[in-house]
């Protein structure tokens, strides 16, 4: 439960907006991508100083005492600015460390993350899992006092400056069983950890991580034997909530920019905005965007009182609806800009690519609809 008062929340939101307006113009972003692969150390320091890294953690943990819904203003702002820094990925890892009450190395890592000195990521998705965090084929085989991890994780975003990865692996049960999943904290440079890095279409950095019989100690297991599903599910839901807020920030920006463009661009002697077919298209973009914004607001209100299972359902509804809205708004923003919207030079295409990336991450709309159907049918 969040202990933040309204004043603190407003302050956080104002600070993000100031940052995006002051230091994250499209040209600034381009320079950041070129010079720092989109991960400027100075920006990260700002994130720490502003307290953004500490929002959803208790004061005991060195946090501000907020909950995950208090990060949504930050994420909307990051959407508007197309911020490429690894906020979402690192926070997801930190949340798992907090949720598992990690001791020793884990506790130290968490403190380091909150102060901006350290980074970690979560490796959950697998080649066949489509974002289902509980579809785990990676194995944890007992080996002496510890385990050996074998398997492949994909689409790990934001691992560039991470020292550790939190990896799910199965010691028991069938592929999609909730029981039998463990969560391990592994150093990325451990023997047998093979990282393949690649740039992602949205300017971020991705990685596939293979675990080839990686030796881990019992102390590196963050959860009770076979009992990691609950925390993994919760962290997954929280990431989806944050992702939706970023998408809302992007979509609101695209609507605004598209409306402005059609007012100035003239064809056949009149502004594009004079054509009814385009007016209706923009009205539809607005409806989709506002619907998602409203759903996000409602979801955030219901979040705190919901249990892990209910949060998963709320998150699935949000992500499924997001997929539909983001695709329409992104595609129409390009269509209404015409050829110029297809260029690398204009920001519109970059918003579109980030939306496309969001659509596919952590389970696409079809996967989440299927999950919702399974809940209805159960």
């Amino acid at each position, binding site marked *: 439960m969040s202990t933040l008062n309204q004043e603190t929340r407003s302050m956080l939101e104002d600070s993000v907006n100031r940052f995006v307006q002051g230091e994250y113009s499209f040209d600034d972003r381009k320079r950041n991508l070129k010079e720092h692969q989109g991960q400027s150390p100075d920006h990260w320091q700002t994130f720490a100083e502003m307290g953004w890294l500490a929002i959803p953690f208790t004061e005991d943990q060195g946090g501000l005492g907020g909950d995950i819904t208090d990060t949504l203003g930050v994420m909307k702002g990051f959407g508007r600015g197309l911020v490429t820094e690894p906020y979402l990925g690192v926070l997801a890892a930190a949340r798992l460390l907090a949720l598992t009450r990690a001791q020793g190395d884990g506790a130290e890592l968490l403190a380091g993350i909150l102060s901006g000195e350290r980074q970690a990521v979560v490796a959950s*998705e697998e*080649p*066949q*899992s*489509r*974002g*289902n965090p509980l*579809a785990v084929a990676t194995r944890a085989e007992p080996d002496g006092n510890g385990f050996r991890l074998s398997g492949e994780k*994909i*689409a790990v975003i934001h691992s560039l400056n991470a020292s550790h990865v939190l990896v799910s692996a199965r010691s028991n049960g*069938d*592929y*999609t069983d909730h029981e039998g999943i463990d969560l391990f904290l592994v150093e990325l440079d451990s023997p047998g950890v093979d990282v*393949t890095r*690649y*740039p*992602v*279409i*949205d300017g971020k950095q*991705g990685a*596939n991580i293979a675990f080839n019989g990686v030796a881990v100690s019992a102390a590196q297991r963050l959860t009770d034997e076979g009992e990691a599903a609950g925390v993994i599910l919760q962290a997954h839901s929280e990431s989806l909530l944050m992702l939706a807020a970023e998408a809302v920030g992007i979509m609101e920006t695209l609507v605004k920019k598209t409306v402005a463009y059609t007012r100035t661009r*003239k*064809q*056949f002697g009149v502004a594009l905005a004079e*054509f009814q*077919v*385009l007016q209706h298209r923009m009205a539809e973009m607005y409806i989709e965007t506002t619907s998602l914004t409203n759903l996000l607001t409602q979801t955030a209100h219901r979040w705190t009182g919901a249990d892990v299972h209910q949060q998963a359902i709320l998150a699935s509804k949000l992500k499924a609806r997001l997929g539909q809205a983001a*695709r329409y708004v992104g*595609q129409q923003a*390009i*269509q209404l800009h*015409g*050829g110029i*919207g*297809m*260029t*690398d*030079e204009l920001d519109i*295409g970059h918003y*579109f*690519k980030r939306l*496309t*990336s969001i659509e*596919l*991450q952590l*389970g*696409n709309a*079809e*996967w989440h*609809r*299927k999950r919702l159907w*399974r809940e209805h049918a159960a």
Partner: protein
Amino acid sequence: MAIHEPVELNTFRHQIREFIEQHADDEILEAGRKTTSFFPPFDQVMKWHRILHSQGWSAIRWPEEYGGAGWDVPRQLIFEEECRRAGVPLLLPQSISMVGPAIIHYGTDEQKRKHLPGILSGENFWAQGYSEPNAGSDLASLNCRAVRDGDHYVINGSKTWTTYAHHANRLFLLVRTGGAGKPQQGISFFLIEDLTDPGIEIRPIIGLDGVPEQCDVFFTNVRVPVDCCLGEENDGWSVAKYLLEHERGGGTSFATTFRHELATIRRLAGRTGDGFGGFLADDPVFQDRYVRLHLEVDTLEATEEVFAAMEKGSPESGPMSSMIKITSMETIQRITELAIDVAGTPSLALQLAALTVDSGVEPIGDEDALTLMPKYLNNRAASIFGGSNEIQRNIIAKTLLR
């Protein structure tokens, strides 16, 4: 899709198949696999063009007297099916399917003699200078101007979205030569032979997919001889429209190409997990989307067959070409959407090096998935180029309400 193919057609099919198997080398096939738009990698597609020319098959749909293959529509389709089956790149449309037919229709004997052989052989590649920064959907408002000076015109202005201009050695160009009257009047159609003129500057534009496909082209006091005009001076709009019918209607069977895309997606769905322990190909939602798109492609093929037999430049052919433009481009856009939905997060990796022919860089993940995101991104332009789909719908509505 041969249902009870007659023996003579089946023999023909095998002749084509054999020729392709013998002549398409690894580099050409690699270019086919790494094609991510309607415009394949330039060097390899032109190499294949020259090979086809050696057999007289570079412009199969042209009238035979000008170098066409002399095949009926079923044989043309078989040829294209076999090309897609083998995975060779689709020939670039600008020369063969766009300016070629316009020169055949409007050119003087001298112009035909001068330009058609180089188009057929692949020695010359023509880029299309139509759109301008302020004349896109409203093409007739174009501003690039040519002023008569003795035996020459002097061109000043600029063009944009000129696909592959950085590879071209020829350019066809719409310019304003007249002043008074409606915007459509006073436009002329030029055939530019020398792109090395210092007054011509070509600047590639990087697209959403990270590669330069389009270009800006700038003209500063470029002198061209008056006989570069195709059709009458100030009557270039007629030529432009005739050419657009060929561009929009397609000089090739889109349906055949799209089926190939669907087949790739189906293969991928057969080995991609659904996240619950099954495979996507067994998922009714996937199956429904797949079959719907297949039906769209089959229907498109029916329309393409009707259009192929139609006299171009007739009252019916214009709206029909607009209909093909809309249905084909919206179908491929939906196909590429299904593709990224099936491929999922692995398609988010930006793999420009692996996509380059002969780079030797292995793709990350499934090779079938390598091109899917670039195709999705690139094809967002399909409802914009060649006259936006909104403009095509205007053309159809205008015909209906006339």
